C-alpha cells in the first residue's frame, strides 16, 4: 500500500477504515430531540390524545394515567404534559437522570 498512487491510497484507506464507532447517542441528546419534536408537533396542532396512544398499545406514564382516567375532555388529554414534567428537565440535563417509572419516554431513552 505504501507505493500506491495517492488517489488509490486514499481509496484503499477509505474502503478499509470505517470512521464510525459504536458510541451511542447521549441520553440527554435523545431527550432534547424528543422534546423538540413533540414541541413542534404541538405547535402545528393538537397531539394525539393519550386515549389514542393507549389504543395503539403504547404504555403511558403514571402522570399520564392520572390525566387519562380523570373526568376531563379529550382536548385536555391532548396537551403536551411532558413540557411541564420534571422528568423532561432532568433528562435534558443529565446523562443518567434519576427517573425510573415506566411508560415515560425519557426513562426509556436511558435504557436504549
Amino acid at each position: 500500500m505504501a507505493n500506491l498512487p495517492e488517489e488509490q491510497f486514499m481509496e484503499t484507506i477509505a474502503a478499509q477504515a470505517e470512521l464510525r464507532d459504536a458510541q451511542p447517542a447521549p441520553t440527554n441528546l435523545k431527550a432534547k430531540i424528543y422534546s423538540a419534536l413533540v414541541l413542534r408537533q404541538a405547535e402545528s396542532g393538537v397531539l394525539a390524545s393519550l386515549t389514542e396512544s393507549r389504543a395503539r398499545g403504547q404504555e403511558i406514564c403514571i402522570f399520564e394515567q392520572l390525566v387519562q382516567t380523570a373526568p376531563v375532555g379529550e382536548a385536555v388529554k391532548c396537551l403536551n404534559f411532558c413540557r411541564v414534567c420534571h422528568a423532561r428537565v432532568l433528562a435534558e440535563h443529565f446523562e443518567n437522570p434519576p427517573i425510573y417509572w415506566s411508560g415515560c419516554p425519557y426513562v426509556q431513552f436511558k435504557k436504549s
Partner: protein
Amino acid sequence: MHQLRQQAFGGSEEPNPSTSDDLSLVAAVLSKDRKATAEFVARFADGLYAYVRSRLTPRCDEVDDLVQEIFLAAWANLSRYQGSGPLQAWVMGIARHKIEDYYRARLRVLDPIEDNDHDHSASAVVPELHRALERDELRTKTKSVLASLPESYRLALIWRYWEQASAREMAIKTGKTEKAIERLLARARAEFRERWNYGQSA
C-alpha cells in the same frame, strides 16, 4: 406493544424492521402520537449520532445540533416516506444531505491551504508500517490523521472518499471549479499521506 428500541445503522447483526412496521410508525408519528415519536427517536438516534460524529470529528461540538436538525428535517418530511425502502435508509439519506450541506457551507468559507514546502515526492518511498495494522488500528490511525489535518483538507477527503462524492459534485455544491476541488483534493491527499507515513506533526 411498541417497544422503544435501538438500532444501529449499517450493522448487519440486526435485520431491518419490515416496511409495514416502518409505515405504521410513520403513520403514528404523523398523527402526533407522542409515544410513537419517542420510538422514532429511540430507533434512529444512536445510528445517526454515530454517523454524524464520524463525519464531523474532531468538531464534536457541532454533532448534537446537527443530529437534532436531521431529526427535525426527517419529521418535517415524513409524509413523503412511501415505504419503498426501509425507514432507516430514508432517514440516513436525509442525514447524508445534511452532512453535505455542512461540508458545502464549511468549504465555502474555509480558505484552501496553499501548497507548502513539503516534498511530496518523498511519500513514494515510505515505511510500510501500516501493513501490519489490524482493522481497529487502521481505523484509529485514520481518524487520528484526519483529525490532525486542516479542516478544509479533512472535509474534502471525507466527502470525496467516505461519502464518495465526485469532484464534479463537490465543485457544483461548493460553487468552486472542478479544477479547484481537484487541487484541494491533491493537496489534502498528499498531506494525509505524509502525516500517515511520518506522523501527524508533518
